[in-house]
Each structure stands twice: as structure tokens, then as C-alpha cells.
């Protein structure tokens, strides 16, 4: 047990505007050991995405520190530390860099200067895992939201990092694929000792985790195994659109199976 934890967040505080008194995160501390799965839950605007941005070094904490594998994340070390981290950000639209599906999945590998034979193998393997192999030549304008999310997930799978971060990365997937992918991640976690941080509103996704942290207005209000957290926070609710959809189904409406954003739901209801 001499290994340092995979991630150690120590008294981190952050605000978007130094002139304002509103803190997006205040005094957050927690650790994640290698091979562990951490779920982050909390309402909209509670600071979950902000936390993810800090962990990959897209923003620097105002105070406190973040250690990855025992090394402190700074402006200088971030490039090196990032090589072991893969992240899927919240918005799948702006995450597509490549011209086609396969180019996009390869992008991070190209940056690591991996040779083309190995790269192709890894890209194709990852695309098969998310069932996007047949669509590998498509460009993003021909893809649905869920398909773009799959591509982003494939990008992380192909990278084979030690730490994977998913910021609501499965919300647009249909329930079956979501279950499949979560099972796959579970398997990889066990087999390769992968560390996973998943930000989610989905109870069943959070239930897979080894530990759960709850954020509220930028403060970490609870931390523990899923069963305990669910007990303590029965009000832990899915996003509004999902709630509404479930309510409608309860009332006997027939709704598409896939997850919909608020806007999509409105579009669907207005039809």
C-alpha cells in the first residue's frame, strides 16, 4: 500500500471570476485510489464539470492542490500527467476534432506520436467496442448526439489511459448500449486496474461506483459507498427532462427510449 493514490484533490477552491464572490468549488478534498470507480453526483450548477476541468488542468485551482499519482498538477507538469488521463467532456458537439469518426478517435494517439499500425489497431478496436466501426468514415454532421458521444468514448478507450473521466458521457445513449458500455468499463476496471471518475445523474450508473461524492453549490456535502449515499439522499434526482419523461411514461404516454436533452424533449412534445 505504498502506492500513492491515483488522484488526490486537496482543499481545492475555484471561481470563474476573481472579482466575484461566487465560488464554483470551495474547499473540496477527496482521494481516489488506483483501480477505484468514483461517481460524482449533484444538481445542475453544483460544480461537477468544473471539478473535471480542474482535474485535467484546463483550469488552475485558486488554492489547494491536485495530485495525480503523487505528482502535483501544475502548468508545467500538466502535459506529462495528461498522457495518462482520458476525459469525455459534457458537450459531444464541440468535442469532435477530426474530419471523420476514425480521425477523431485517432487524434489523441497522433499527439502521442504512436506509430500508424498500432494506432489503426487501437482505433478500430475502440470503434468496435462502441459499435461505431461501420460508421468510421462518416463525418460528424452525419451523426446523432448519441453517436457523437460514442465516438468521444471510443477516443478515451483507444487512448487506454490509467484514469478515465466521463462527464455525463452516457446520457444520450440508449439504455441498452449504456448498460453494455458500463459493463465493459467495469470489466476493464477489474482487468487493467483502471481508475474511473464518472459524473452522472443516472442512479444506476452511480450504483456501479465504489464510492460516491455529492456536490452542492460547489461544496462536497457527502462522500461514501453508493448504498449509504442513496439512503442519505433520497432526493438525488435525475435531470428535469428525464424526470418529466419518466412521469409521462408513468401516466401512460409512449416516449422514445433514448435520453433526450431538455430542448429535444420540448421539440418532441411539440410535434
Amino acid at each position: 500500500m505504498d502506492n500513492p493514490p491515483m488522484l488526490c484533490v486537496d482543499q481545492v477552491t475555484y471561481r470563474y471570476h476573481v472579482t466575484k464572490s461566487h465560488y464554483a468549488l470551495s474547499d473540496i478534498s477527496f482521494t481516489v485510489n488506483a483501480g477505484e470507480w468514483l461517481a460524482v453526483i449533484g444538481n445542475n450548477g453544483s460544480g461537477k464539470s468544473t471539478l473535471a476541468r480542474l482535474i485535467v488542468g484546463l483550469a488552475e485551482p485558486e488554492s489547494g492542490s491536485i495530485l495525480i499519482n503523487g505528482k502535483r498538477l501544475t502548468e508545467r507538469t500538466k502535459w506529462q500527467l495528461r498522457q495518462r488521463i482520458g476525459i469525455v467532456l459534457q458537450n459531444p458537439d464541440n468535442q469532435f476534432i477530426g474530419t471523420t469518426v476514425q480521425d477523431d478517435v485517432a487524434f489523441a494517439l497522433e499527439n502521442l506520436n504512436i506509430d500508424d499500425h498500432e494506432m489503426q489497431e487501437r482505433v478500430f478496436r475502440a470503434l468496435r467496442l462502441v459499435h461505431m466501426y461501420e460508421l468510421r468514415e462518416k463525418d460528424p454532421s452525419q451523426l446523432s448526439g448519441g453517436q457523437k458521444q460514442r465516438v468521444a468514448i471510443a477516443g478515451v478507450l483507444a487512448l487506454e489511459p490509467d484514469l478515465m473521466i466521463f462527464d455525463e458521457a452516457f446520457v444520450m445513449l440508449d439504455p441498452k448500449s449504456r448498460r453494455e458500455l458500463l459493463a465493459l468499463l467495469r470489466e476493464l476496471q477489474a482487468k487493467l486496474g483502471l481508475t474511473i471518475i464518472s459524473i452522472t445523474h443516472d442512479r444506476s450508473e452511480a450504483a456501479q461506483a465504489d464510492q460516491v461524492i455529492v456536490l452542492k453549490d460547489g461544496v462536497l456535502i457527502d462522500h461514501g459507498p453508493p448504498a449509504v449515499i442513496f439512503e442519505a439522499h433520497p432526493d438525488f434526482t435525475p435531470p428535469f427532462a428525464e424526470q418529466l419523461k419518466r412521469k409521462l411514461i408513468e401516466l401512460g404516454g409512449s416516449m422514445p427510449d433514448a435520453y433526450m436533452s431538455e430542448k429535444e424533449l420540448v421539440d418532441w412534445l411539440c410535434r
Partner: protein
Amino acid sequence: MNKLILGRYFPGNSVLHQLDPRAKLMAALYFIGLLFYVENGQGYLYLFIFTLMMMRLSRVALMTYIRGVKPLIWLILFATCLRVLFTGGGTVYFNMGPFIISSFGLLTGIYTFSRFVMIIFVSTIVTLTTKPIDLTDAISFLLHPLKYVKIPVEDFVLMLTIALRFIPNLLDETQKVMDAQRARGTVFGEGNLLQQMKKLVPIILPLFASSLNRAEAMADVMEVKGYQSGKKRSSFRQLSWSRRDSLCLMGMVVLTLGLHVLNEVNVLLLIASIY
């Protein structure tokens, strides 16, 4: 928007589609250079026949090429007229102030016209038979030497790739914003020029804002995926040079020799006619 042919890709599997984009781009640029080396009518005819043959080889309908020239026809005619009106020599048919219409001028006009048309045809052949992404790879290859004078070619090429990838998004978004403005009662394409331009402001501003947001988000993604300017990176897309690509370049050499002969023949005829 749908009318623009130049710059579009038509999927297919003709010989030209299968050529390496580097070979195609080099050959096309070379051909355009060659157009300025022609000295006489038969030279133009010779190159024109070659262009037509290439158009046939692309297996894209002739009409498509003609539609490609159409949006530019006024520009071409304007340039042609200038050449005609300001070139003297030979028999003079008409003369007023600086304007001259002469036999020599008319001939020059025809040459200018066909040169323009051939340039457009040849560039259209390249873009119709090459995926934009392959074309950027070819451009990247041709610009490669610039790296030795410390010009960031890779950044430039990535920029080009991302720009290409965003054209459909941008068109899409334009459509959305226009629809939103229509829903608010704006009628496009009406009123005088000033009024029409005013109507564009509420379209361009949201587009600008959303593009900036997007650019920022994408820069973040590129950063977390480890893209660093100037760092050595490998490439997923591999171009492969095959024999037919070498043949294509050989073809250009043969074409040049043919043109050279035609140029010489004409000089010989001229000398012969003097004596």
C-alpha cells in the same frame, strides 16, 4: 449554395478518384503552369483536348463542369474583354481612344478565355475527385519544405482541416438563425441593398458568438487530448504512392514534350512562310 461546384467532392471510383491526392495536386498545378507556356492556337487546342479527356476520365457528367464555370463566367468575360480592348496588332477593326479591336486582340481574347476555362476545369477535376481531407493531406505534403524555414505548416494544415470540418456546421447554424429570424417576421431578399444588409446583422452576430464559443471549447478539447503546437506527432491517415501515381507525373512530362513540339512547329512554319 447547392450551385457551387468548384470545391465539391463527388464520390466515385474512377482512375482519377484512385490517384494519390499528391500526384493529382502536383499534376494540376503543373498543368496550370503549362497553360502559360503555350504560344499558339494549336497549343491551346492540344491542352483543351487533354482537359476534355481528363474530364471524361473522372466519369463526372460534362454538365457538372459547365455548371462549375457558370458562376464565374462574368468574371472571365470581363477579363477577356479587357484583353481584347487593350491589345493592338494585326488588322485593326475598330479604334476609339485607348480602345482597340484588332485581329491580334481578338485572338488574345480567345486565348485568355480558354486559359481561364481550362484552369477552372482542371481545378474542378481535382476537387470533384478528391476528398477535402485528402486534399489537405496533399497540401500538407507540398508545404512540407516550408517547415525548414520555421513556418508552422502542421498548425496551418490542422487549421484548414478543422475549418473544412466546420463548414457543414456553419451552414447548418446559418440556416437555424435565419429560420429564427424568419419566425420573427424578417423577410430575406427584399428591400434595397442597405435594408438587406441590415437584415444580415442579426444573423452574423449570433453566428460569430457561437463560433467563438465553439472555438474555445474545441481548443480545450485539443489541449486535453495533448495537442501541442510544434510537437512531433504521427498521422493516422497514410497516403500511399503507387505506380499509377508515378505514371500520372510521367504523363505530365509527355504532355510538356508534346506542347514543346507544337510550339516549335509553329516557329518553323513561320520561318518557312517568311522565306
